[in-house]
């Protein structure tokens, strides 16, 4: 075996590694894009849509009621999970507060108690006042609120994504409630 032969084989061996690396790179690009799709699809407010909650008459003044809507970003196979609830508080006229049911602490569904005017969370003991401000427990802020508008006698909210401390984009930012 000559010196020249060895280096030629080594060259082709390295070429083989290079070509396979190249192929892997070409394959990796779409895979990375595919895996990051949940982030990419949401860019530019794509996870935010205006949703019709129904006629104003369904929400009596001075009351807080549970409203349900179909999540605007959904698939046919989502089943019951695309029925999303929210708490609608009508102060008066066209003045509303629409709260996500998800506790600002860790996302469990808060329940409204009209008698005491409190939202209570079943998981870790978070409690909020009727205006969504934190009353007690571990929540770091007030309840998440949806942006709303009234159009043609219908209450519209802007929603679509699960509210957490960093995915509030579709929801109005509120200052943290009185921490007492």
């Amino acid at each position, binding site marked *: 075996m000559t010196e020249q032969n060895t280096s030629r084989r080594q060259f082709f061996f390295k070429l083989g590694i290079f070509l396979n690396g190249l192929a892997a790179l070409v394959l990796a690009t779409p895979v990375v894009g595919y895996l990051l799709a949940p982030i990419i699809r949401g860019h530019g407010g794509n996870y935010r849509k205006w949703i019709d909650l129904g006629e104003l008459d369904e929400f009596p003044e001075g009351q807080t009621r549970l409203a349900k809507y179909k999540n605007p970003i959904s698939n046919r196979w989502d089943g019951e999970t695309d029925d999303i609830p929210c708490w609608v508080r009508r102060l008066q006229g066209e003045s509303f507060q629409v709260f996500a049911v998800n506790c600002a602490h*860790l*996302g469990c569904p808060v329940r409204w108690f009209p008698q005491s005017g409190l939202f209570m969370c079943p998981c870790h003991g978070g409690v909020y006042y009727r205006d969504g401000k934190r009353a007690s427990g571990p929540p770091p802020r007030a309840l998440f609120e949806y942006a709303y508008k009234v159009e043609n006698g219908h209450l519209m909210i802007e929603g679509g994504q699960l509210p957490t401390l960093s995915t509030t984009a579709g929801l109005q930012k509120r200052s943290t409630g009185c921490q007492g």
Partner: protein
Amino acid sequence: MSRLAKIGDWFEQRLKIDAVVRQTMSHPVPRRSASWFYVFGSAALTVFLLQIFTGIMLALIYVPSAGEAWNSLQFLNHGVPLGWFLRAVHGWGSNFMVAIVLIHMVQVILFGAYKFPRELTWIVGIFLLLMTLGMAFTGQVLRFDQDAYWGLGIGASICGRVPMIGSWVVHLLLGGPIIAGDTLSRFFAFHVFVIPGLLIALVGLHLLLVLKLGINEWPMPGRLVRRSTYIQQYEDTVHKDGMPFVPAAIWKDMIFASIVIASVLACAAFFGPFGPTGQPDPTIVQTVPKPDFFFQWLYALLALLPPAVETPALLIGPVVILGFLILLPFFAGEGEKSWKRRPIAVITIALTAVALGTLTHLASYTPWSPVMGAWSGDPVPVQYLIGRSPLERQGAAIFQGKQCRNCHSIGGSGGLRGPTLDSVAVRKTHAQLVRQVLQGGGNMPAYGKNLNPAEVAALVSFLDTLHPANQPAARDAAATPQRDAEHVTENK
């Protein structure tokens, strides 16, 4: 030569595996290591095999679709002969696997088995623990019920606390903007392909390392591990005082593994499958989500951590713990192996066990949560109403109607979020009670805007009566004597 032996020969000619198998089976173990303390690793492996088997069985029926998963579990429970039993075995197998992996880990720490030269075995073991917990969590998600749905909500909310890229992490976890079909599909992929694949590969590596390095010898106080001499010492031990793994040691593994499997089957037959609980419909807000047993300590911790340290504890805590465990064999890789001379190891394990046990116990009755139905479900004890004035009884009705009972127990029932009020009048004067009701504080909401003055007067007059017969109500020492006397007679 029998026909069977001929067939065996035919395969051996091609596979050339006989020598390797014999060598593996007869690898020497130190005589004292053939002990009942050394059976947990093989028991964990056995339960893992059981999980693979029952998992495949369940996958024959289970539909990994958010719209159908819950229905397919109902069908498994009620529509397929013994489907409930396979679900129960898989569920109980999961609990047993976590438990045995933890016991195995404790044994390894107490016997100093992570020390030189078995550092890599230990580190692979840490990842096996993480994956076991990962399987337990993703498996709980596949049981796509209310607990699974809100458990995902908690997972997403924790991810949402990551600074800067929190929203990306949330959307990656959920596979979209919200818990839905894509979420279940990706958890299915993790539970069925990704994590089991890694588990199988790492279990293989773990076993290979055990074979290459030999099983840990029985630790003797005073016999120190030194990097320079250990391997030679170990070789001497196994050659002088060793036994072949098969059959000298393996019979204990086999007996213990069969006891474990029998226990899993017995639990499954006796207690049945886990859930599914209510269907995963987020509009059903009347739910009390709770994680599976091995995550309940975390559930309790999340309720009890002060809000200010919660995010750092959630995000930095796991990294610190993981880092500590991985680095353990590097800063404690030599020296004593026997737990009799390693008090810090023993204390650390004892404290960890007590902490996890206490948190799990707290999670069993969640004293931090309001009892949602106490105000309408638990009556005021009769002895608190006998001989009371109309105003005081009115106060008792307000106490119930305004849901005070959800957080404050009286007569042994009600919430434990706030203090029990059976003797509140001993602790607080009339004026202090009025202030507490109106302004709240100390983790109690203020009721000033929600009660009119007449209601406050009635409620507090009821609270004033809540003291034991032989113990007078608290009085304001600064108040005028007459007023105070009046107040006491009022309460008679």
